[in-house]
């Protein structure tokens, strides 16, 4: 029983991470689009792309599993 509650906690946390990351990345894309419509500054756009990529690499691709050795739950 306890196991089950823990499990669903983890699941809920995972959902929350996914939604937050998705929303942030979507918002950053909108910012990019808006910035580009007023000026195509390469450095700023590149920096935003870097943040988006970092979010996906960290949270969607779980890059930390490479060194935390996390198995499949």
């Amino acid at each position, binding site marked *: 029983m306890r196991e089950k509650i823990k499990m669903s906690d983890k*699941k809920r946390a995972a959902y929350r991470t996914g939604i937050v990351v998705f929303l942030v990345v979507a918002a950053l894309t909108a910012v990019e*689009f808006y910035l580009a419509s007023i000026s195509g500054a390469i450095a700023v756009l590149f920096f935003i*792309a870097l943040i988006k990529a970092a979010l996906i690499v960290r949270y969607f*691709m779980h890059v930390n599993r*490479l060194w935390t050795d996390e198995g499949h739950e």
Partner: protein
Amino acid sequence: MSVATTTLSQYRAQLRSNRLGLWLFFISELFLFGGLLISRFYLWGGTRPDLDQRLGLIVTSILLLSSFFMYLAEVGAEHENRRLFLFSLIMTALLGTAFLLGVVIFEWGGEIRPWDGAFGAILYGMTGMHALHVASGIVLILIVAYNGLRGRYTAERHWGVEACAIYWHYVDVVWIFFYPAIYLMGTVPT
């Protein structure tokens, strides 16, 4: 892929190596996409072709959304929620296909042809190389879905799902850099 003849500890050791191997492959591909990106700046400099901005935003959003569904699919597989897993997986494949069609039909159907100077060469080179990866990602998703339907993944053993998922996200990351480079950076020559 899970092979039931191995023990769990063997599986985990191999899992660790598989992950590292796949990430090394990503780093390797980074040089390929990086080379394309550098070629873009080398040839286009501060200019860019006049492309349909609405189309760019739509396909980008579609790919982003597909990445979110892929994330859900992996969560589903981790927690043995088969309905969530399969539904999200199919959604990812559909959105991926929509992205591909958007690029191939609308973007490639525009005014610029591949042989039209550096604009054509780089535009088709970048989107073509990326589309190739999206297409192979869709094939991978379909294979994972086929095996998922037959219940071949468990919470302990679903490297196939994980590999497919991080590959898909990787293709998304590449587009995160390609989209501004193609659509947003620089000015359209008049």
